[in-house]
């Protein structure tokens, strides 16, 4: 599997570490326990497009949001997690 790092270019999966679902949002500190439980444990497993967090630890140490088709393994987009997080912050 190869992921095109937006900074470093295409690299093999051995350079990356997988974390998981990029669609969950960390609740506010005082959120009810159900929200925390959902954030930490509940995950969808969609048959199709999904966004995941990958870390380019052996490269530029950037966290990336990788959009992937779970059926074909096709990678549809890769974006720096920080940029997405900042955009999310601006939108909120």
């Amino acid at each position, binding site marked *: 599997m190869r992921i095109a790092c937006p900074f470093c270019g295409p690299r*093999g999966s051995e350079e990356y*570490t997988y*974390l998981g679902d990029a669609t969950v949002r960390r609740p506010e*500190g005082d959120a009810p*326990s159900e929200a925390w439980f959902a954030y930490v444990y509940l995950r969808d497993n969609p048959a199709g497009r999904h966004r995941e967090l990958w870390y380019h630890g052996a490269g530029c140490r950037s966290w990336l949001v990788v959009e992937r088709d779970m059926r074909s393994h096709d990678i549809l987009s890769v974006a720096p997690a*920080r940029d997405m*997080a900042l955009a999310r912050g601006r939108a909120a």
Partner: protein
Amino acid sequence: MSAPAMILPRQAVATSAAGPAPAQPFRLAAGGLVDRTATLDFTFDGRRYTGHPGDTLASALLANGVRLVGRSFKYHRPRGILSSGPEEPNALVELRSGARREPNTRATMAELFAGLEARSQNRWPSLRFDLMGVNQLVAPILAAGFYYKTFMWPAAFWETVYEPLIRRAAGLGRAAGEPDPDHYEKATLHCDVLVTGAGPAGLMAALAAARAGARVVLCEEDVRLGGRLLAERRTLDGLPAPDWLRGVEAELRAMPDCRILTRTTVFGAFDGACGAVERVSDHLATPPEFQPRQRLWRIVAGRQVLAAGSIERPLVFGGNDRPGIMLAGAVRSYLNRFGVAAGRRAVVFTNNDDAACTVADLAAAGVAVAALVDMRREVSPEIRRIAEAAGASLLTDAAVTRVRGRTALRGVEVTDGAGRRHALDCDLLAMSGGWSPSLHLASHHGGKAAWNEARATFLPPEQLPPGMAVAGAANGDLLLAECLAAGARAGAAAAQATGFRPAPPATPSVDGESTASAPFWWVRGGRGKAFVDFQNDVGVEDVALANREGFRSVEHLKRYTTLGMATDQGKTSNANGVALLAELSGRTIAGTGTTTFRPPYTPVAIGALAGHHRGKAFRPVRRTPTHDWAAEQGAVFVEAGPWLRAQYFPRPGESDWLETVTREARTVREAVGLCDVTTLGKIDIQGPDAATFLERVYINTWKALPVGRARYGVMLREDGMVMDDGTTARLAEDRFVMTTTTVNAVRVSQHLEFCHQWLWPELDVQMISVTEQWAQIAVAGPRSRAVLERVVDAPFDIGNDAFPHMACAALTVCGGIKARLFRLSFSGEMAYEIAVPARFGDALARRLMEAGAPFGITPYGTEALGVLRIEKGHVAGNELTGQTTAADLGLGRMMSRKKDFIGRAMAQRPGLTDPARPVLVGLRPVDRAARLRGGAHLLPRGAESTAAHDQGYLTSVAFSPALGHWIGLGLLVRGRERMGEIVRAHDPVRGGDLEVEVVPPVFVDPEGARLHV
């Protein structure tokens, strides 16, 4: 017991093992691509033979009249050479001897070299007379699924009787049993276009792409380029095939960005890359100096063209596995490429027009052709003419219904459409059931091959691996002209797709041919076992049995009968097996479907997969700045994650590690010791929001920590469990240096980046690892200050008032070396950690030893470090299991209630605050002379030793020099309420069971007075 006579020409008979190697009686007088000017000696089962450069072991054996080469997997039936390529299911032999002995090598792929030693497999005591051949007599109980049926009861026999029995009978060759003396490599190749297979289609694809300027890699598993063109008498552009091939190869080799890898099998199409193995030195007795035996290539290609050709299908009839029965294409290959007649008198048995070539080539080589047996009712006038010219009788609508001979073919009986039987003497039967595309790589991404009724074959799946195109015979095109044209088109398209502007090369003109075929493979009513899968010994009855017992899905058929499994992956058997199952179950072949071909296409040595990374290079080793100094001190090293750390420093006269470790720990408590702690992760955290960031990742508070002070911190995972711990020091208002445990350094760094980049990108904080920048040495013990005073430059004051416990500072040591000093203690003694730029680490250790000599300083290793921290009840990796909370470890009060931090919310959930959780306690044996064992489980006194009574376990144990007996830390249910209680430490693994007393986890100086002197 005398062996039955083989049909062999007179001159080959009666050669003794000791005598001179015989001539090659089946070698044709002329022709072929072998070098007849040189002769190579080799042995097979200890007997000497000769061959020529350019031979494979198989062609050389055939040239010498050796037909019987192995025994089959299950029934130990005599087997000969079936094919001339990687699909060979029968001729699996052991090559070489000693540490280089390699089992299960296909004789058809092994290039001959001088001195090659080869042996047959799976026979005892000899190939000719194999006792396990009695398996044939009990064949009914070895039928499909016999493993599942036979070895069921009694269950007590599973491990004691059945498994050893199966293991002894299973498998073919013997592994060398010694370390492989050769070395292997792995490397990566990038290209625009990968072409797999250098037959007519692959060569044209490579030409088209390379001429367009693309970076091309052309992989061919054979030693020569050409594919089937090497085996057939064809002309291209008016040139004999070998001459045409020379021209193409010369052009490709002249192009700087075209790389040709011969002896290289592309064995898998993986996600993002292909795997290929180059047999760099397999054709030599031993690899040349500095050359690997094999090289594993990871090939990253923009596009790829699969031109792997096709594999001929055997016909399925009773006795079709007799030595001397061979695929017709292989017969032609041995004639035309190797100049070897596979027999003296042949019968050709076929369902297709390829037979014309077989008959013609045999006749041209002077081999008598007794008959052409065609399963079809009608054949073309051209075939009639060729048969007539060869003097072969033509039997149509006919089939072989019986074979004669046991270890070699002596004749066949043919039954024609009218029911007439014809007895024919022959020592060679060339059979052809048509050709199946070699499409394995095309289905490695899960795509299923699709049945094509018109071509009566499986074709590559519609869903190909990304970037792959299939061309030529691999795509079902059997005509040479089609292969050449399709290859050129595919190569041009691949170049275009990778940004080049190709002009497709002109396709060479070729002589005419016909590939008409009729889909008949199975002869009913013949005598003897009819095999579908030769390698796995699966016959028609096995498929029929599976069908009767309801295993009608091809996937079930495969598992139940083993058809198409193992190293063979169904190369010669898949289409026949599926067709047979379809017929037996009354379905179409398309409706029956096929199994998925899996990588590797052919077996890959484990050594090739490991490459450079074996033995000491198994994985990178990280050495501390004081490694060489420690080695000089006689240190014994231990792996700590990727690091090598000094474990203990034995001195002359010390009898074992425990004596050494006890001495080191005692010296720290009583005088002073030093220990390299460089391996602890160090992260430089800077920025205006650095303190805020720490507040959010640690459970305790940081904003109020003054500059020049350090603090112990604990971080949790978001699920509330402890992730890591360590001390973090404030170097400036906007700068901290964090330490992590050795093993978690990388993980913590990744976690902090995650928190910063994804959770809190608004924070102005920057971080980078400085683990390697600083050599850090702990100096611990009551005399540590006295030692340090001798290295710290004046006027810096390290006295207790100026530099108290948990102080830190930047300073200089040893006359101007910049350094950082931390007053930290893991041992519970007054202690410092001193950091200098890593290049000075070695010299600093030596200087500290000199400075400490008057005070009795000793170096101590990780074992003594462990003893000292257990005596103090400090947690470490054994307690930070990922299943412990801060409260479990007695650190619950550190958790701030005034702020949010990672893990805060989930740490409050009922499961993690349950008072019945196992918590950290100290444990000491009631019998003070008894030794504790880590991992022993804690059980109440009097309770049965069952999991139901399990209340925790000993996480860490040590012999305490301070107390003079063994002590331990453990996790015990409700442990804090049970001080003074006696429980059992039960150790079923090592057979221990002793009483221990529950005590507070801090065994030495519980008030911490020694820290503050």
